[in-house]
């Protein structure tokens, strides 16, 4: 509540808040970059190529769909089906999500129509996942979760509070897409001797080593090629296959949404979700840096990058990595807020002897998202140090159950051990601390579902009192 336009003191200058405009006029599209490979003799005129990454997005989306299809009697068959999307490379795999929905018609029906012989297991974070019990690598965690998911009804294990659909999806997005992009393509592959720019990526390829590495990172982000023409809300709704945004999604106007270039996936979707707050512009910041980096590679004209060009490219990569990390942290922040609200609801229901089953499902779903994103944050190859330790300790291995128990480990047979006696109120405080930790460690801005209700902003509005000023 402000009265801020008193003419007598009009010297105060209103400074722009920094939230960028949502739509870029005449925006850049990621694609149609010319072939620069020296001596290229093929037919391609466009060197852009990230179909393998989009195929993995489709494998992920489909795997998530399957993870919720357990009915208590189909465990082995379901596990095999899930593994076909996670580990298999065989032909004929249908795209289970996204699919045509009313007027929102998608152009492809099988994974092979986008790219052949792709799997997820070959590109998973190889380090230890400390946020999950059992001292496992990323790949082992996902195989373990897939097996467990197959034995549930609807993807949820009520005894542990695990929602495997969410856990698999959110962790996999980090362990595959985020890890491969920021640790490999935008880091290792930017070195002079790795995938050089004066040679084709592979023999006969129409793109150089650096060009294709850059494309692969862009593909993993999951933005539509024309993301800079879209506002956050539209980019978000495209991922939901919402009919209202069909025209915006269908850039080539063929009446169908091309799952390769016109769909929103994974972290691009969560970037748009954060940007809907109007406080951030992650989707455009990241996409613009990708476009600018790719243009730089085109300008390099198939020559090895100079030191100056490499420094500029690394600058774009740093912009992408920083914003991408924030996107994941913003998502974890948001779901910590959801879990807090769920706990509040559950406490009231339990205290009034009501039926908590519906609220419990909501709680463990949000918890699965929180946990998955928190684990994903730790797959970038960057050591988060104390932040990771505190984050894992505050969230724990599992949600606090209504009886106060929580998963504390896994025994030698792969069964969960449950112990402890935390109450729901105490766990609410943990969620506050999770948000505080994420907000401070990653300098978050969108801060959706902030349980402290904008305490930081309020304190900032009150002004600093750190000056030596008497009465």
């Amino acid at each position, binding site marked *: *509540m*402000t*009265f*801020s336009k*008193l003419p*007598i*003191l009009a*010297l*105060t200058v209103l400074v722009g808040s920094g939230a960028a405009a949502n739509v870029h006029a005449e925006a850049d599209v990621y694609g149609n970059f010319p072939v620069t490979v020296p001596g290229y003799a093929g037919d391609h005129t466009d060197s852009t190529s990230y179909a393998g990454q989009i195929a993995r997005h489709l494998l992920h989306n489909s795997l998530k769909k399957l993870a919720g299809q357990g009915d208590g009697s189909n465990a082995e068959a379901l596990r095999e089906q899930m593994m076909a999307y996670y580990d298999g490379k065989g032909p004929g795999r249908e795209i289970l999500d996204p699919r045509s929905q009313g007027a929102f018609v998608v152009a492809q029906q099988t994974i092979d129509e986008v790219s052949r012989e792709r799997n997820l297991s070959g590109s998973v974070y190889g380090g230890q996942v400390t946020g999950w019990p059992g001292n496992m690598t990323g790949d082992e965690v996902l195989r373990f979760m897939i097996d467990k998911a197959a034995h549930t009804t609807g993807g949820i294990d009520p005894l542990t509070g695990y929602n495997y659909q969410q856990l698999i999806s959110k962790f996999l997005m980090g362990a595959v897409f985020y890890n491969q992009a920021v640790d490999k393509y935008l880091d290792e592959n930017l070195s002079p001797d790795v995938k050089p720019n004066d040679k084709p990526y592979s023999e006969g390829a129409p793109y150089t080593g650096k060009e294709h590495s850059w494309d692969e990172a862009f593909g993993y982000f999951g933005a539509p090629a024309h993301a800079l023409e879209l506002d956050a809300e539209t980019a978000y709704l495209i991922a939901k296959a919402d009919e209202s945004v069909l025209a915006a999604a269908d850039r080539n106007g063929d009446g169908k949404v091309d799952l390769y270039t016109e769909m929103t996936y994974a972290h691009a979707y969560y970037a748009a979700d954060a940007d809907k707050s109007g406080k951030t512009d992650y989707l455009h910041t990241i996409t613009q840096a990708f476009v600018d980096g790719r243009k730089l590679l085109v300008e390099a004209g198939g020559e090895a990058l100079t030191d100056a060009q490499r420094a500029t490219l690394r600058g774009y990569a740093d912009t992408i990595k920083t914003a991408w990390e924030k996107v994941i942290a913003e998502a974890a922040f948001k779901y910590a807020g959801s879990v807090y609200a769920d706990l*509040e609801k559950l*406490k*009231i229901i339990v205290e009034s002897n009501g039926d908590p089953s519906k609220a419990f499902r909501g709680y463990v779903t949000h918890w699965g998202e929180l946990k998955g994103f928190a684990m994903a944050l730790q797959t970038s190859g960057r050591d988060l140090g104390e932040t990771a330790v505190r984050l894992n300790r505050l969230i724990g291995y599992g949600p606090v159950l209504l009886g106060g128990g929580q998963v504390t480990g896994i025994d030698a047979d792969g069964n969960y051990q449950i112990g402890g006696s935390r109450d729901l*109120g*105490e766990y*609410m*405080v943990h969620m*506050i*601390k999770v948000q*505080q930790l994420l907000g401070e460690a990653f300098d978050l801005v969108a801060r959706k579902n*902030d349980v*402290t*209700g*904008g*305490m*930081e902003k*309020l*304190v900032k*509005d*009150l*002004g*600093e*009192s*750190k*000056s*030596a*000023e*008497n*009465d």
Partner: protein
Amino acid sequence: MWAFAQDYATAVFGDLLDPQKRVFWGYLASAWLISFLWLFVRRRAGLVRAAGEFFSAASWLTRSARADYLVFLLNGAIMMLLAPALLSQLTIAYALFQWMHGWFDGRPMLQWSPGAIAAAFTVTLFVADDLARYWVHRMLHRVPALWAFHKVHHTATSLNPLTVFRTHPMEGILFSLRGAVVQGGCVAPFIFFFGDRVELVTVLGASAFTFAFNALGSNLRHSHVALGYWRWLEFVVMSPAQHQVHHSIDARHVDRNFGATLSFWDWLFGTHCHSQTREPLVFGVRGADGPGAHRLASLYLLPFAEAFRAVASKLPGTRAGQRAVAAAE
């Protein structure tokens, strides 16, 4: 170094452009206007005198005033260096917010209208802050080790709006702590009960009370313009002349009028004194008015020695304590 210099310049001179600060140019202008109107209309002073009184050389160009300016400039740098180590209001607010979940076994939210929440928060913050200012100020006078530092402010023998910054950095730390406790202590419960609907009623970005207090002549408190209010109003609100009484060396005025905005606290806790606008006051501290009183070394270092002696005198095992005991016997 350059970045520090830029931050320093922004911190020090930014106050002149910040409506949350008392020395914001608009408040200085309004103080002059009020001074002019009061002298010209009420005291029937000549036009030149009424317009110039606020800028008198006796207020702005004395040895005491020059010390004020130097302390202001030096403190800017000292507080910038100290600031990262000081406890923040956000830390206190977060801790209190978390504890409240235990005290209330969850989080019972209250459904008030936005206007009522904003009004309640703004009034609570103002009252709590003003009360805390009263008691901290009173302690600064009554506790010898604290008085050693607060005396720096009172050794000013002439008053101008920048005298407000003639403050020892140790006192600055104490004020920062006071602000953090009050703000954190108000923000946390309001956020706890009302969530993100809590707002401060502001004018130009400053609390409506801060704005009103400053726009209505707070800068005249440290000036030679003895603007008093009606007697009944001086029981509630501290007039500039009442604060000048607080700086007077007259024995009748010592340890009176500790209040910041409200004089009500002084009335409630027995330290109230009305303004005295008939006779000119002499400002300063009796016995501390020599030429060395305005040297920077004296202002910054002597308080430590004096505070040490004050503390040591309370410890029987020390020489200072033994001297104090012997003197008492």
